[in-house]
């Protein structure tokens, strides 16, 4: 299993979530976060924003679904401008459902 953490634009959140739902991955967790990237924030005229609001979408999927989920997020979160976000993948060894206590997604 892999954990996918995607930092996306807040305004793209609904679009990404609904697209993932349509692709058969309805389960995810979201956290509003603030962060900055390579550009060290954003400068508009005299005003400098050091940290910009993003939404962190966290989901755990089976290995074989990883590419599909990444593609859906990329397609929907992309605007082509700076600040579209990043996707990070990390390994997950085990998952349990609390309701049943069973292992697996």
């Amino acid at each position, binding site marked *: 299993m892999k954990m996918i953490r995607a930092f996306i634009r807040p305004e793209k959140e*609904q679009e990404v979530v609904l697209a993932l739902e349509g692709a058969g991955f309805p389960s995810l967790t979201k956290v509003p976060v603030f962060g900055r990237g390579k550009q060290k924030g954003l400068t508009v005229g005299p005003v400098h924003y050091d940290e910009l609001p993003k939404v962190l979408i966290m989901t755990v999927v089976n290995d074989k679904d990883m590419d599909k989920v990444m593609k859906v997020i990329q397609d929907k979160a992309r605007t082509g401008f700076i600040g579209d976000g990043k996707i990070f993948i990390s390994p997950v060894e085990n998952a349990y*459902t609390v309701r049943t206590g069973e292992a697996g997604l």
Partner: protein
Amino acid sequence: MKEITVIIRRDKLPETKKALDDLGYPSLTIQSVEGRGKQKGAMCAEMDTEMPDSYCTAVKLKPTPSTYALDHTLPKIALFVPKRLLTIVVPDDVVSTVVKSLIKVNQTGKAGDGKIFVSPIENAVRVRTGERNGEAIA
């Protein structure tokens, strides 16, 4: 070392903390998150005992051609349920004990109990002393 990421109901937090204290692993990080699972964020009185039935967001209508059309013409909103996300880093040998205890405390048998994820942690550093690996979380 393993990282246990567990997503639980908000009202189960005190009990979970107590259970972890009793096991001897009181260190944890708590985040307020919103999430959705197989039920796509729908909430019902059956899932959450604190919730009045009028707040139910699950679709009770049977799908008929007209509701199907309605469903696909109106812009849909993705629903989320507020949850608590705990991150606990523990040594390898106690992972199963902690997971069992977390399941025992948080299980209500209704949808929305949450998920537990176990993932590897490569290194840990205690900032105050610079200790590494196992010592850092002891």
